[in-house]
């Protein structure tokens, strides 16, 4: 049976972007189109989630070419959760960009690029074809390239050279892996490949070799130790309305693909691959959090924390039990929301105080107590203080780790949480609590002026932060629905017959 609902998360942003291109340099019209697109995208993804929740895995064969021959779109619970999270984050970033980005950048096509990027993310999450996956990754990446360089300021250009070069290499590795898989097994449909790999009698070594190419390619994209150096060097350079979306979502999409492929396809030789992932996840956590401890820039601290949090998500895959995978899924969704929220908060702080450097900031609590309260919620959620959302993810992961006897990794993950609190406390002390530095009196005057003139603007910038904080509180205080969804998603991932049967119509 064909489910056209699957095509909507791809078509809505595509049509929105094309319409925006028709109204090039007419920001008012583009904004209206953007609002309509974001809202309908959100509605479509929510509908997709409720459908996959009730009917199980949905598939669509594009052009009615039956499964192993044509391109199939597949939505299970994990992919629909990702699509919903990206739509929610998309709305927040879109609202922030209405006033949080300079007009010069908006005029050069920010809105169509954002929509195309969302299309790429949804495409990666929904595709059931290996080569199609690569194409969606390229759609997503080229939008990221342009967005990071949009405006062409010095730091952006420097960051984007690093980003472009390393991600070009990562994509090539991904393509080599896909070519190897096709050369060995002669198919590109992920469900058929899953059957072929499980039935393969020889070539186990070659398949594992191909999986290493995927591991390296996707490892670069999702910033796993030791392949993460490009991330803190580039993610903080673009304006917040751009970096919040990219930082919140793109590395998690890489990790989504890693989890999908290593549960569905590359299940051979797990006794070699999983310990490797285990070590990588522990080192990713530790190195990320230690890197953050040394930084003195709001956005750079957050960028290093992205790396650190990636370790937790990888930890679930490395432990490879239903509870652990569910923990990873919950953690990914939680982290997409929290990370975007923290980046947006840094944007609001910059807008009202004119700096990202901790040394130049201070006393925000005095002027913007609401913003400070929202930062506390997001930061504690990131660190995993109960009852906020990060706690449940870390609790599930730690419990799964203890059940299989990975005491070292669990201890590492818990001590990394403490170091996360340390970094967040540093931001809190420097940005919100300490006295405003006395060096320039003009800044105070300028700030007072901003507060009078820009009050509606600042209020509008608070809106997406508030929206995300409410979302974080919701999945934290009322965690049951998301936790049970994550459990059922991990059941679907680990019982690959469900996926195979749904796609190949057995």
């Amino acid at each position, binding site marked *: 049976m064909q489910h056209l609902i699957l095509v909507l998360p791809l078509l809505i942003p595509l049509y929105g972007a094309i319409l925006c291109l028709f109204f090039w340099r007419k920001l008012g019209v583009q904004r209206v189109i953007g609002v309509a697109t974001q809202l309908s995208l959100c509605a479509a993804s929510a509908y997709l989630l409720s459908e996959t929740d009730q009917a199980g895995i949905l598939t669509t064969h594009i052009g009615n070419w039956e499964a192993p021959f044509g391109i199939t779109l597949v939505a299970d619970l994990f992919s629909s959760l990702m699509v919903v999270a990206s739509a929610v984050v998309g709305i927040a970033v879109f609202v922030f960009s209405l006033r949080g980005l300079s007009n010069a950048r908006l005029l050069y096509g920010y809105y169509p690029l954002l929509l195309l990027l969302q299309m790429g993310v949804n495409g990666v999450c929904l595709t059931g074809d290996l080569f199609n996956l690569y*194409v969606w990754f390229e759609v997503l990446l080229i939008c990221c390239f342009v967005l990071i360089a949009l405006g062409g300021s010095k730091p952006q250009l420097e960051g984007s050279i690093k980003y472009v070069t390393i991600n070009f290499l990562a994509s090539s590795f991904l393509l080599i892996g896909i070519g190897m898989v096709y050369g060995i097994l002669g198919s590109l449909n992920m469900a058929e490949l899953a059957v072929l790999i499980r039935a393969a009698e020889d070539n186990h070594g070659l398949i594992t070799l191909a999986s290493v190419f995927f591991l390296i390619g996707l490892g670069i994209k999702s910033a796993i130790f030791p392949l993460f150096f490009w991330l803190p060097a580039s993610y903080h350079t673009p304006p917040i309305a751009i970096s919040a979306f990219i930082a919140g979502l793109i590395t998690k999409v890489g990790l989504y693909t890693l989890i999908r492929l290593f549960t569905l396809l590359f299940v051979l030789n797990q006794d070699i691959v999983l310990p490797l992932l285990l070590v990588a996840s522990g080192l990713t956590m530790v190195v990320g959090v230690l890197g953050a401890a040394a930084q003195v820039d709001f956005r750079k601290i957050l960028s290093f924390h992205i790396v650190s949090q990636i370790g937790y998500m990888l930890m679930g895959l490395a432990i490879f039990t239903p509870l652990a995978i569910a923990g990873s899924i919950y953690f990914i969704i939680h982290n997409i929301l929290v990370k975007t929220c923290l980046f947006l908060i840094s944007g609001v702080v910059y807008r009202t105080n004119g700096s990202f450097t901790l040394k130049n900031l201070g006393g925000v609590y005095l002027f913007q107590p609401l913003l400070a309260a929202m930062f506390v919620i997001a930061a504690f959620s990131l660190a995993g203080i109960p009852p906020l959302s990060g706690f449940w993810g870390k609790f599930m992961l730690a419990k799964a780790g203890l059940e299989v006897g990975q005491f070292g990794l669990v201890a590492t993950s818990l001590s990394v949480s403490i170091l996360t609190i340390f970094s967040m406390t540093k931001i809190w002390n420097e940005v919100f609590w300490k006295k405003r530095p006395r060096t320039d009196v003009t800044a105070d005057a300028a700030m007072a002026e901003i507060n009078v003139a820009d009050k509606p603007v600042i209020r509008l910038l608070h809106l997406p932060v508030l929206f995300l904080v409410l979302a974080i509180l919701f999945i934290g205080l009322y965690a049951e629905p998301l936790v049970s969804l994550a459990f059922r998603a991990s059941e679907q991932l680990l019982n690959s017959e469900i996926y195979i049967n749904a796609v190949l119509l057995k």
Partner: protein
Amino acid sequence: MDILLPVLVGFLFAAGLYLILHRHFFKLIIGMMLFGLATNMFLFVIGRLTRGNTAIIAGTDQVASEPFADPVPQALLLTAIVIGFGVQAFAIVLIKRVYQVFGTNDLDDLDKTDRIHEKYPDKASE
């Protein structure tokens, strides 16, 4: 050809990676191009080099007559070439822009975003 092409692909990979590791902008671009080419060639070669017919099925037949070349890797290759072309075009423009803005040809001069204390003024990234 079955021996020569894999060796050529390996040589292209090595040359591409070597040039990407260079500090010079121009060599970076050439390296990215060679690496992309190597990837495309790899896709082509791994689809087996079959000499013979195309996979077009003649009027009355049910299947294509053996031996025929597998069309799937060629279709993939075509897509990958187009994507690679787009990415490389963007990379060339980006690097030209970087050269104009920074006035340098050395990647080692672009290390400010990696440093902790030495950084661009905040205004630059507004």
